[in-house]
């Protein structure tokens, strides 16, 4: 188990380390500058990838950063945490030739690093238009919305439950993808440039508080993300050594050297969060077993994320359900049962129980939608608990509200939250401008 910052850094070596000038030059030279480039289409924020790569290649790093930030305010974070394998890099035309695709994510972070380190002022804000907007949640969606609104001349106040900004980009993303410092540095850089205001330790969830905001602000953006882990009803999940995956990861990210896990960790789930939890435990020295109720092919996690947990020695058991948590004050053993899929339905196989030793149980069984706790009149949710919006303007059924990010898409990536936050800002802008006319 790593006990010093140095050991920690070694165990959590960056998957996409920053490039130096040489690497960036060679890699950028390879880009073909495709017309109607598929990489741009595959990026949820539609960054003009060939343009910024050419700008890197011609030593116009500031121009490259500007190209990136004008589409995506989390250009640096996204370069490091985006699942590029299924986004831009997965779409790069080089794949068709069997040649390694351009390392778009790393080039992207290369350009943004230079801008952040040199505090480059890339944008000029429009003159104040005397409109005020409140943003609830300082995650990627809320911050992106705030940046775009500030750029357009709005005064923006963000209200955030936590004492730190970033949402799950800070509390969720794996430490081997990005360091906490990097996330915070990018947000500081944005705040310096755009000058929005953040009120920390301020949760907004009662009708009175929302009413207050409605009176003081012309529009309100909800970037509240998802809630706690959806804990299954199995008895024993309240034991001390059983924890939800998002809660574990947040704990771990905030106190990497203090958090203790057991020797035999079991992670239940098959999504990307399960993979992250498994990988993180394995990297601090635990024996990790992943248990997923369906087959490997049916996992929600990306293939490269599963490859990653295998590479750090985690084992996986597929087609197994958790039946019973055994132990006294603490979880000691899990009773599982084999399953099989029949016509899309999962059934348990009789007499196939088996036990798995476990002294630390992580449940990566999805995050709750926390929308029901928001007491906002006329706000509608879809059947899956996602806030309903107009897909063009991101406006909610209650017209004063706009929303984006995990709370709307049900849980996607940082880059989606960025795209939706920015889109909502533009929706707010045209809504308020139309109202004036």
């Amino acid at each position: 188990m790593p006990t010093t910052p140095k050991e920690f850094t070694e165990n959590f070596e960056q998957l996409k380390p920053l490039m130096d000038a040489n690497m960036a030059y060679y890699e950028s030279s390879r880009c073909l500058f495709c017309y109607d480039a598929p990489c741009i289409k595959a990026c949820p924020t539609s960054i003009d990838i060939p343009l910024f790569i050419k700008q890197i290649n011609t030593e116009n790093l500031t121009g490259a950063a500007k190209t990136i930030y004008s589409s995506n305010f989390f250009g640096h974070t996204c370069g490091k945490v985006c699942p590029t394998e299924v986004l831009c890099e997965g779409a790069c035309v080089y794949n068709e030739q069997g040649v390694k695709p351009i390392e778009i994510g790393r080039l992207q972070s290369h350009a943004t690093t230079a801008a952040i380190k040199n505090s480059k002022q890339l944008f000029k804000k429009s003159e104040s238009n005397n409109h005020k907007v409140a943003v609830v949640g300082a995650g990627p969606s809320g911050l992106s919305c705030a940046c775009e609104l500030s750029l357009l001349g709005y005064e923006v106040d963000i209200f955030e439950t936590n004492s730190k900004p970033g949402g799950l980009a800070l509390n969720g993303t794996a430490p081997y993808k990005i360091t906490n410092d990097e996330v915070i540095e990018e947000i500081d850089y944005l705040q310096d440039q755009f000058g929005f205001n953040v009120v920390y330790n301020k949760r907004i969830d009662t009708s009175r508080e929302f009413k207050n905001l409605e009176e003081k602000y012309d529009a309100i953006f909800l970037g509240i993300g998802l809630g706690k882990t959806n804990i299954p009803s199995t008895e024993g999940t309240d034991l001390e050594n059983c924890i939800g995956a998002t809660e574990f990861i947040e704990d771990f990210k905030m106190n990497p050297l203090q958090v203790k896990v057991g020797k035999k960790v079991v992670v239940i789930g098959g999504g990307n969060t399960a993979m992250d939890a498994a990988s993180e435990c394995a990297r601090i020295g635990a024996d990790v077993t992943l248990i997923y109720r369906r087959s490997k092919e049916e996992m929600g996690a990306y293939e490269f994320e599963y490859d990653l947990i295998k590479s750090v020695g985690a084992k996986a058991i597929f087609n197994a359900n958790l039946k019973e948590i055994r132990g006294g004050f603490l979880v000691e053993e899990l009773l599982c049962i084999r399953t099989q899929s029949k016509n899309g339905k999962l059934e348990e196989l009789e007499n196939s129980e088996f036990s798995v030793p476990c002294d630390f149980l992580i449940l990566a069984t999805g995050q709750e939608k926390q929308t029901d706790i928001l007491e906002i009149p006329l706000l509608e949710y879809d059947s899956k608990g996602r806030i309903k919006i107009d897909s063009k303007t991101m406006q909610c059924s209650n017209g004063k509200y706009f929303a984006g990010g995990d709370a709307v898409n049900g849980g996607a990536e940082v880059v989606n939250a960025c795209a939706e936050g920015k889109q909502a800002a533009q929706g707010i802008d045209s809504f308020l401008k139309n109202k004036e006319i």
Partner: protein
Amino acid sequence: MADLTANLAGIISPNPFWLASAPPTNSGYQVMKAFDAGWGGAVWKTLGVPVINVSSRYGAVNYRDSRIMGFNNIELITDRPLTDNLKEIEEVKKYFPDHSVIASLMVQTKEEWHQIIKDVENAGADGIELNFGCPHGMCERGMGSAVGQEPAVLQTITEWAKEAATVPVIVKLTPNITDITEPARAAAAGGADAISLINTIQSIVNVDLDTFAPNPQVDGKSTHGGYCGPAVKPIALNMVKSCAQDENVGIPISGIGGIESWRDATEHMLLGASNVQVCTAAMHYGFGIVREMISGLEQYMDDKGFNKLDDLIGKSVPKVESWEHLNLNYKVIAEIDEKKCIGCQLCYIACEDGAHQAISLSKIEGVRVPQIIDENCVGCNLCSLVCPVEDCITMVESKNNKGHESWSDYMDSGKAPENFDDDRAGGKNHWVPKPSDALKDKKESR
């Protein structure tokens, strides 16, 4: 933010990036699309009596995995009727009144010049470019580079054009000539308002080793073409500089040749071009590349504190001197950054076989970082040019108190060598190994 407004002899455009007269400016459709993408001006594909082109027209030189380092063509001027072109020029100007449309022209008689100049001016052209540069097909008919290579003829035709033109006249020069300032001076003497250069360079890009015919092939045969693209930039830059330095030229320059990025464009302007024209890069990547050019130039100007193009145009002209005025007492020595070195030893073998035996290899087993032998290094730059690692080999000034002395000073003060075995020879005391040392290792192993 820097102001990119460009002014070439009174022709104002929103930025200095023009498309050169070539296939990208073949039609109103293309020019409109280009203006929409951000180009500041376009020189229309050369107008004249329409031609008939061959099929298979272009060839290219690839460098390793990079396509089209050099590009060559055997196309002629426009093959579309004049009326169609004029109509389209008029339409483009209606949509884009602030962008520059220049009509490139190539005809024969004085009457034809006068007539076609009136026609294009009526269509709304902001300027006229006389194509005295096409190096194939047209010159055999007494036009194009046939004119550009005869300063007297060039001057006469320029005068004809000036008689008829009310808009600025630009003379486009061919590089297929010994001294570019001769036609440039003739253009100025003929009254031209500006010159543009370079047109393409006569070339054969490669030969098909199976059919024995060079490329591009037309039914098994080929002909020499005109060379352009990134490979020709150094030739263009030198010619632009020569015209910018020549007092008898003295008119604005539109720089053309090998421009693919903002850096290439900026180099042209630093050496004296008031704006630039681009052909091959637009043919390779489409009109979208102009965004990179605009963004890069703007950023550069902001970084350097230049507010307008005039702040940078010609800034490098005084930095180019004739050789005899360079300081012979200035000395640089190569220095290897051991931390950056990846041990390819390309610097070693380049210096050993191709220069001055001033780099040695380490005798320690496993150490691959070479060492510079300071006394032998003449400061030629070769190693720093072959080194694949950015900033790994730097050329560091070796200070002395000898002051500034050039070849012409040497001549004046009698320090210049005069006979074959002169003691004043520059390399007189420079150490060279014995010829037989070259085979030393072989002998030992025998």
